[in-house]
C-alpha cells in the first residue's frame, strides 16, 4: 500500500492469505502422496496386508486412490470448496467431525497456555529489566537459560515420573478420567502437568525478548529527558517505556502462537492427550490422507495468519518496514513451528 487505500492494502493481505493456503494445500497433498506407505492399512487395519490383488484394487478404487495425483487433488479441492473434506480412513467418519471432537482439548491446553505465557513473560521481562544486571535479573536469566534448554518431552517424562508414578498425586496421561468427561475439576486436574510444561517451555524465550526490548528502550534519549524532568523510575518505566514496547511485544506474541502450538503437539503425544497434536501425528504416520490435509491446512493457516498479523502490526507501527526492510524479529528454529 502506498498509504492511500486501506481497502487495497487489506484486500491484498486477504488475497495473499488465500494464495498461500492454496500453495500449501498443493505442497502437502503431493508430499503426502509421495511418501511410501499404505493408506489401506489405516482403513482396513491389519486385514489390508492379507488382501488379494483384486480385492486390493477394488478397495483402492473405492477410496479413489487409483487416479493420478493431480485428479485426486482437483477432486479434493472441489470437495473442500463445498465444505466436504472427505472421511478419515481410520475413524470412518467425516474429517470435520473427528477434528471437532478433539480441537476443544487442544484449544484449552494451548489457549490457556498462551494466556499464561503472555502475562507471565511480560511480568518476568519487566522484573528483569527493572533489576538489570543485579541479583534478581542474573538469577532469573540463569534459570531461564537452563529451562529453555530442557527438551519439553524430557521435562514431561520427569514430571510424570515424579508426580504420577512415584507420588500418585497427578494423572500422567489423558484429558479426563474415563466416564467423567463433563467434570471440570477432573479436567483441570489432568491439565496441570501438560500446562506446566507448555508454560515453562516457552516462558523464558519471550520474557527474554521483552527484557531486551525494554533495555533497548531505556537507552533512548527521551528517557534521559524524562529523568532530567524529575519523573520517577517507576513512572518512566511503566508509563513511557512500556507503552513504546507494547506494539513490538504484540507482534512477538503473534509469532509465538505457532511455536506454542508446535510445542503443544509434542506435549500432547507424550501425555497421550486427545487433541489435534496426537491426531496429526497419527494421521501423518499412517497415511490418513484426508485427515492429514485438513490438519495441515488448519495449523498452516494459523501460522500464516499469525505471521501476517505480526507483519501488519509492525507495518502499522513503523511504515518504513513496508519498503522491504526486515521486521527485526528473529525466528526460532527447530520443531517449534
Amino acid at each position, binding site marked *: 500500500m502506498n498509504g492511500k487505500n486501506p481497502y487495497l492494502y487489506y484486500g491484498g493481505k486477504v488475497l*495473499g492469505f488465500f494464495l*498461500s493456503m492454496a*500453495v*500449501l494445500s498443493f*505442497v*502437502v497433498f503431493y*508430499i*503426502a502422496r*509421495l*511418501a*511410501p506407505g499404505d493408506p489401506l492399512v489405516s482403513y482396513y487395519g491389519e486385514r489390508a496386508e492379507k488382501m488379494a490383488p483384486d480385492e486390493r484394487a477394488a478397495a483402492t478404487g473405492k477410496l479413489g486412490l487409483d487416479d493420478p495425483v493431480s485428479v485426486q487433488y482437483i477432486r479434493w479441492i472441489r470437495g473442500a470448496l463445498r465444505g466436504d473434506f472427505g472421511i478419515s480412513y481410520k475413524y470412518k467418519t467425516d474429517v470435520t467431525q473427528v477434528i471437532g471432537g478433539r480441537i476443544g482439548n487442544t484449544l484449552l491446553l494451548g489457549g490457556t497456555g498462551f494466556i499464561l505465557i503472555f502475562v507471565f513473560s511480560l511480568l518476568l521481562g519487566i522484573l528483569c529489566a527493572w533489576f*538489570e544486571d543485579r541479583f534478581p535479573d542474573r538469577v532469573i536469566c540463569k534459570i531461564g*537459560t*537452563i529451562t529453555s*534448554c*530442557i*527438551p*519439553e*518431552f*524430557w521435562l514431561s*517424562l*520427569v514430571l510424570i*515420573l515424579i508426580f504420577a*508414578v*512415584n507420588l500418585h498425586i497427578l494423572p500422567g496421561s489423558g484429558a479426563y478420567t474415563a466416564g467423567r468427561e463433563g467434570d471440570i475439576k477432573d479436567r483441570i486436574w489432568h491439565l496441570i502437568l501438560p500446562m506446566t510444561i507448555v508454560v515453562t517451555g516457552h516462558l523464558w524465550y519471550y520474557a527474554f525478548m521483552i527484557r*531486551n526490548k525494554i*533495555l*533497548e528502550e*531505556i*537507552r533512548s*534519549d527521551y528517557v534521559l529527558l524524562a*529523568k532530567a524532568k524529575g519523573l520517577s523510575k517507576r513512572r*518512566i*518505566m511503566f508509563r513511557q517505556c512500556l507503552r513504546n514496547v507494547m506494539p513490538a511485544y504484540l507482534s512477538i506474541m503473534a509469532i509465538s502462537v505457532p511455536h506454542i502450538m*508446535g510445542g503443544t*503437539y*509434542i506435549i500432547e*503425544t507424550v501425555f497421550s492427550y486427545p487433541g489435534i497434536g496426537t491426531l*496429526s*501425528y497419527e494421521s*501423518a*504416520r499412517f497415511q490418513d490422507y484426508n485427515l*492429514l490435509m485438513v*490438519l*495441515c491446512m488448519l*495449523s*498452516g493457516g494459523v*501460522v500464516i495468519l499469525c*505471521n501476517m498479523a505480526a507483519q501488519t502490526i509492525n507495518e502499522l507501527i513503523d511504515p518504513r518496514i513496508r519498503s*522491504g*526492510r*526486515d521486521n527485526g524479529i*528473529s*525466528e*526460532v*528454529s*527447530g*520443531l*517449534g*513451528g
Partner: protein
Amino acid sequence: MEDKWFELVGRESASRVLSEWEEDRAGERDRARSGFWGSFWQKINRIKIRKKKRNRPVLSLCLLLIVMAGCLGCELFIPKDPLYMDLANYAHEPCREFWFGTDTMGRDLFSMIWYGGRISLLIGLTATAVSTLIAVIFGAVSGLSPRWLDALLMRLSEILLSVPGLLLVVLLQAVLGKANVWSISFVIGITGWMGIAKVVRTETKQIRNSEYVTASKCMGGGFFHVLWNHLAPNFISSIMFMVVMNVRSAILSESTLSFMGIGLPLDIISWGSMLTLADKALLSGAWWMILFPGAFLIVTLVCITNIGSALKDGAGSRESNL
C-alpha cells in the same frame, strides 16, 4: 598528498592507512606521557578496555570440551561395550558395576552416553551445516534478485515452513525412507534455515549496491565469488550467534524426534534414541534411564547456549539512561 593516495589505492584502503597513522600518533602521544601520570593514563585506558570486553563463557567452553573429548575418545575409558545386551542384568539400578545402571535391553548406560554423544553432536553439526548452507545461498539469492523475485522467494519459504515442523519431518522421513544419521541431519537441516536466511537477506540488501560488489561483478566475478569474498565477511558476524543456536536446536530436535519414534532407531545409539525406551522406564520406575541421558543432553545444550549468547552483543553494552 592525500588525494593522490585515494587515487592510488582506492578509498577503502586509503582510509585504513589513514586510521593506522592516527593510531600510531595516538600511541606516540601515550608513550610520550611517561612518568607517574603517563602510566596512570595508560592504566585507565586499559580498565576501560577490560570493562568493554564481554564475559567469556570459560566454564561452558571447558564443560563442552570435556563432553566432546569424552565422546570422541570414549573407547579409552568406557567399561562396557555399549552395544552389548546383557540380558541377565536388564534395567539394573546404578551400582558399582553399572555406574548409571542399565536400560531395559541390558545395555550399560554409562558407556552408551559417551558413545551416543558422538551421534548427537555429529547430527547437531551436520544439520547446522546443511541449514546454514541453504540459508546463506537462499538469503543471498533473495537479497541480490529483483524485488518481485525476492518477495516471491520469501513468501514461498514462509508457506513451506508454515507446515508444522513435526508433520514436515514425519512426511520427509517417510519420503527419505528408513532413518539414519545423515537423513535425520538433512531433515532437521532443511526445516531450520529460515531465521538465518532472513538475516543474510537483509544484510545482502544493504550492501548489494556498494561499489566493491559492483566492481567485483564488473570484473566478471560469479555469484559464489561475490558471495564468498564480498558478502560473507559482512554477514558472518551477525549470523554466528544464530548458527551456534542452530546446533543447539538441531540436537534438541534429534532427541525429540528419536523419542517420538520417528528419528533414529534403537540400535543407533544417541542421546535421543536412548530416551526412546522411556515409556518402559516409566512403567518399571527406572528413573536412571530418563535422568542420566537427559542430564548430559541438558548440560551440553546449556553450554552451547552460553557460548552462543556470548557471541552476540546484548543491549547492555551501553550505560542505561534510567
